[in-house]
Structures are given as structure tokens and as C-alpha cells.
């Protein structure tokens, strides 16, 4: 029984691992920290798995547990991200129609997002993942209206960081 549980968990996690990678990318700097957080999220997901009933999608459930682990449970060793680490951390895919100006803007934008606090990052993360405000609000435990207000404030803050 428990082996079956393990098997189904591992298979589902493997298929959904990019969700975790994306969160690690936003909340950590450097490969070691990325792996470390990935492992902690995996452990927390596994610990919570017996309670996973399947009435929500595995991916939806993963978003919640993974974000909670990154924001609340994980003990970060390094808080700030240096430019060097940031550059090496990116995996830019170079297109044929490589647009230098656009690429620069994206880089600056990533840097700006890294300067946000943990909660703001969570909102931006879910926004980038096309989550609706209802899900954002439910995941964080705030009201939908306030989630919208906060997101608008974050946009303002990002603008300020980009054009100081």
C-alpha cells in the first residue's frame, strides 16, 4: 500500500516538477539553494500526500504546498541575490529573432522581481502562471479584492524599481 502511494507520488511529482523549479528559481539564488529548496518542497509534498484526496488537481495542490514551503517553512541561508549569481542563474533561450532591447528589459524585470519581498513574489509568481485572483487569494489566505489591490501596488513598485 505505502509502496503504491510512493510510486504514484513520485510519478506525479516528476510530471509536475517544473512548478517546483519555477518557485525555486524565484526564491533562491544559485544551484545549491535551488536544489535545497526543491528537496524541502518535495519532502513537504510527500508528508502532505496522504491527505491529498484528488478532489483538486495534483498541480493545484502542488502550487499551494510548494509556495507555503518556500515562503514559510524554508530556512533560507542567503537572502539577497548578487548580479553574478543572477546572470548565471538564468537560462535564456536565444531565439532567431533575438531582440536585444527586449532581452535587456526582461533581464531588468527579473532583477526587479528579485527585489520584491516573499509575499509579493508569490503574487507575481501566480500572476505569471496565469492563476486567477480567486486562486491567488485562496492560496495566500487573503480576500480577492485585496489580492487585486496588492497586485496593482506591486506593478507600481516594479515600475519604481525600473525607473528610479
Amino acid at each position, binding site marked *: 500500500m505505502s509502496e503504491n502511494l*510512493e510510486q504514484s*507520488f*513520485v510519478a506525479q*511529482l*516528476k510530471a509536475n*516538477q*517544473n512548478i517546483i*523549479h*519555477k518557485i525555486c*528559481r524565484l526564491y533562491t539564488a544559485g544551484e545549491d539553494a535551488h536544489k535545497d529548496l*526543491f*528537496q*524541502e518542497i*518535495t*519532502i*513537504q*509534498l*510527500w*508528508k*502532505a500526500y496522504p*491527505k*491529498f484526496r484528488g478532489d483538486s488537481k495534483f498541480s493545484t*495542490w502542488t502550487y*499551494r*504546498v510548494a*509556495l*507555503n*514551503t518556500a*515562503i*514559510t*517553512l524554508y*530556512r533560507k541561508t542567503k537572502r539577497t541575490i548578487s548580479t553574478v549569481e543572477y546572470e548565471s542563474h538564468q*537560462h*535564456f*533561450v536565444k531565439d532567431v529573432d533575438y531582440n536585444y532591447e*527586449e532581452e535587456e*528589459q*526582461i533581464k*531588468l*524585470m*527579473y532583477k526587479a522581481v528579485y527585489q520584491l*519581498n*516573499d*509575499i509579493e513574489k508569490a503574487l507575481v509568481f501566480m*500572476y*505569471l502562471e496565469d492563476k486567477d485572483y480567486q486562486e491567488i487569494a*485562496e*492560496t*495566500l*489566505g*487573503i*480576500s480577492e479584492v*485585496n*489580492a487585486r*489591490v*496588492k497586485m496593482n501596488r506591486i*506593478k507600481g513598485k*516594479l*515600475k519604481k524599481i*525600473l525607473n528610479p
Partner: protein
Amino acid sequence: MKELDLLKKDWKKNANSFEQISETEIYKMIHKKSSSIVKWILIISILEILFWTVSNFFFSTDEMLIKIKHPEMIFYLEVMTSFNYVIVLIFVYFFYKNYKTISTTESTKLLMSSILKTRKTVQYYVWYNLAMAVISSIISFFIAFIYNPDMEFFRDKLAANGQAMFMTIGIFMLVTLVFLGLFWCFYRLLYGTLLRRLFANYKELKKIDF
């Protein structure tokens, strides 16, 4: 916001660019130990509860009580001791109950508040014990002063000299304050490093919903 849309486009483009973790690696990971703050809080809390419960055994006043030869005093202290056990059990029960509500599948805000609540339970237990330590040392100071035959010499001396009396009380209070201050610093340090980030994030979340 134009830049945010650009970022989203890039974010999606890179969504599958991560080095994939194999099933074997995932198997290995789920058998590793967590190093989350909840685990640290649990370990520290158990140590705290044990420390205070065990220290109650060591600060035994039996020897002094035998010397005093006042059976009613012994009775009161026995009542106090049993009361203390009941309190310990109540605290352990609430600690366990709150600890069990900590769940990563709840919303972030709820998860944070249940961690803080669990932490608070232990904090109350520590405050209770500190208060009891202060109260019982004051009481035993007076009992010793009034009833203990060994203190007779001291008592006579103090009665003759008012200044010495104040000095004694002053030193006693100073020692208590230093003792409490040390504890306070210790806790600030211990939980400060462990919970600083959690507090900050919790505050931020509460601010959003204000």
C-alpha cells in the same frame, strides 16, 4: 504593464528549460529529513518543556522543609506540585493540538498563524515557569527567613540593622531581574533568528487584508 507582459512571455518560454529530476532522485529525496522551521520549533519546544519539567524536580525544597518541621507547609507545597503537573499536562495537550493543525495544505496565512500559535503555547509555558520560579523563590525566601532555624543569626542581625534588610531585598531583586533579562535575551536570539522572516511575512500578509 508592458514589462510584466514581456516577463510573462519569457517566463513561459523558459518554463520547460529546467534540468529534470529523475524518479530515483525523487525517491531519495522523500526519504531525507526535513530541515523546515516547523521541525526546529518542534525540537526546541520539546527541549523547553523537558527543561522546565525536569528543573522542577531539581529545585526541590524537601530538605529545607524537613528542617522547618511545619507539616502544613509540606501539605501546601504538595498541593502546588500536583497543580504544577496538571498545568504541564494542559500545556502539552495544547501544544500537541496546535502543532497538529500546522498544515502546508492550508492557506499561507493560516499556516503562518498556526505556527505562531504553537510557538505561543510554549512561550506561555515558559512565562508560567519563570513566574512560578520568581514567586516560589520569594515565598521560600520568606519561609526560610521566618521558619528556618539556621537563619536565626541572620534574622537577628537584620532586625538590628535596617540598612542590611534593604540591601538583602535589593540584591534579591537584582538577581531576579538579571535572571529574567538573561532569559529574555536568550529567547530573542533563539526565536529572532528562527522566526524573523515568518513574522515579517505574516505582517505583510495581514497588511494586505487590512
